[in-house]
């Protein structure tokens, strides 16, 4: 008689593994929180989502802000970071809409061409943008920095680092995103002493951009591929012997640039100006290897997004300011204020861990 148990065994094993995977992890393990807050527990807790444009340490800080916001404004917060660009972002949003989410804050990867997705969200729930805006969509407000101004602030750091002028290379993950384009344009316009015009756009393929004192040699993109980002920096050092300053516009660029400059033994010779607050960048500023950085306040992006969405979910329209823009201004960090800033950053992010733990029993209910 054939042994019937044979095929049943692996099938049974499969079901067990799947059950563990599917049911065991039932409650989201890492990125949801709900707070007890000050409000009464009988009120329905709104569920809001915070969608980033990728995975980066920058977003980890924003996530903590969002979690704190969830605690403060008594909302369940679901933070999602798409790994594979627009397609992932779309899938995440649709899945959240299917779950009947009460509001979505999104950093659109390509606002110009994600119109369909943004309308799909705004038809179903409250939509706000953070970090990168989509002005033509039906978003209720934008929370973030004025990226063009931040770019100009970055440009002034380059001027301070290299007052006698010189050549500059710009490194960035992608230029498809409005925030990257605006920052880059801000840097270029500042170095060329042009009037402020966020609508100007120098084609990155058009070659060198020459000003009186400063020349922008090129802008290199890496598509969030860190290996490539470092290779871009190394290649630039190899190609331009007179390279004066490297500007990294996304958080992960400056540490990789710093690595490349160190390896080439050109610390001090090639100045580095950074964007965002990666720990290695901050350490570089402390050590004098990086001149300075322009920081946004991702913690506030997360926190404010949740505040607005939770308010909207409760029918409070007053959370939206006139002009539909909540400005979270950028700051310049140099050697003289880096310690203070870093301490503040640690203070802002550290207590969240504790409150997350405190929130866990509430979330598990």
């Amino acid at each position: 008689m054939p042994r019937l148990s044979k095929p049943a065994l692996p099938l049974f094993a499969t079901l067990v593994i799947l059950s563990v995977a599917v049911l065991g992890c039932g409650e989201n393990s890492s990125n949801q929180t709900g707070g007890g807050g000050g409000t009464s527990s009988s009120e329905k807790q709104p569920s809001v989502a915070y969608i980033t444009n990728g995975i980066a340490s920058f977003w980890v800080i924003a996530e903590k802000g969002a979690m704190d916001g969830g605690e403060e404004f008594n909302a369940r917060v679901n933070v999602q970071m798409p790994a594979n660009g627009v397609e992932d972002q779309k899938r995440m949003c649709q899945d959240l809409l299917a779950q009947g989410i009460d509001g979505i804050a999104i950093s659109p990867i390509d606002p110009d061409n994600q119109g369909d997705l943004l309308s799909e969200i705004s038809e179903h729930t409250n939509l706000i943008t953070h970090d990168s805006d989509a002005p033509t969509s039906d978003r209720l407000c934008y929370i973030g920095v004025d990226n063009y101004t931040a770019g100009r602030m970055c440009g002034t750091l380059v001027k301070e680092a290299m007052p006698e002028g010189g050549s500059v290379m710009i490194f960035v993950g992608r230029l498809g995103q409005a925030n990257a384009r605006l920052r880059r344009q801000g840097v270029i316009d500042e170095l060329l002493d042009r009037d402020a015009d966020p609508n100007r756009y120098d084609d990155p393929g058009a070659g060198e951009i020459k000003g009186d004192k400063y020349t922008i040699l090129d802008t290199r993109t890496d598509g969030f591929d860190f290996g490539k980002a470092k290779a871009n920096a190394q290649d630039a050092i190899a190609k331009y012997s007179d390279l004066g300053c490297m500007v990294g516009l996304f958080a992960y660029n400056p540490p990789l640039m710093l690595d490349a400059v160190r390896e080439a033994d050109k610390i001090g010779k090639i100045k580095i100006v950074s964007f965002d607050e990666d720990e290695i960048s901050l350490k570089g500023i402390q050590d004098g290897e990086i001149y300075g950085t322009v920081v946004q306040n991702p913690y506030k992006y997360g926190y404010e997004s949740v505040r607005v969405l939770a308010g909207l979910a409760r029918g409070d329209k007053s959370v939206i300011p006139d002009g539909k823009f909540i400005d979270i201004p950028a700051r310049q960090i140099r050697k003289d204020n880096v310690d203070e800033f870093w301490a503040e950053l640690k203070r802002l992010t550290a207590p969240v861990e504790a409150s997350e733990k405190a929130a866990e029993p509430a979330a598990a209910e």
Partner: protein
Amino acid sequence: MKKNLGILGILLFVFIATAMGSDSFFTAYNLFNLVERSSLYGIIGIGVAFVIITGGIDLSIGSFIGLVAVTFPFVVVSHEMSLGVGLLTILALSVIAGITHGLLITKLKLQPFVVTLCGLMIYRGISRWMVADKTMGYADDKFEGLKIMVSSMNKLPGFQNVEWAKHVPVAFLILVALGIVAAIFLNKTIYGRYLLALGRNEQAARFSGINTAAMTVLAYVICSLITGFGGLLFALDNGSIQPDSFGNFYELYAIAAAVLGGCSLRGGEGSVFGVILGATLMRLLMNSISMLGISDQLEQTVIGTVILVGVIVDELVKRYAARRNAIQQAKQANT
């Protein structure tokens, strides 16, 4: 059908488990999205199944999807040509890519892995260079007509007022049509049988008078054509194309769907229905992970594990079936 019982079982289990674990899963909106995604990946899975059946592989699918997705708006919007010219361009690209892959593999006897790996890099580079890394979009009104292919069935003429049609993605209808044509071609036509024969034993097929070189080229052309078409659908669906990343890893999703669906990487085996099931299982898993609130950091691990388990189960079931057949034959021989 019998061959796909293992994967069908897992599919049903995940489906039921998710439906039980999440109220939002079994809703019209979510199922529509799920079916649409499964259909898009199913389409490219069918494409790669044709080359896998011949014992080949196509690693260039993701980059080729990127190339098609970038080329189409490049021709139609940036160069203001008509939709027809755009479609002809991507059709031509697909045929040329398929013929080139096929000829390099059959005439120069290069490894399919190497040829298509080079394709992966070449197409990606061309896409980026062609548009200087600029994001390409499908927001232009010109694309409205084509976008019906990635919308719901009630946009089709004759179905405007049909209630249920709004819950059926057009991409699903395309998948069904393509699946039927592909299955008939593979199983009921002589050329389909040739492809299977060539995959099982290339030499034997050649000695029995099959022009195996021509059949191999045909398989790569079919794959590129389906990939090109799939790329167009993906592009229309997403609307925003980053030339440096759009389509990344799609070849692996397509290959995994084909393998999950019973295609042997050694060639000679495979069913279209199985490929569709494979693609669906992967999309279903991703959807389940969101719906059940499993941390998305674990997403790839869960999918990888399920594919592995699926393949192991499939292998064990096959062995068991073979042994039982042998026993039965032996019994019959005895009586």
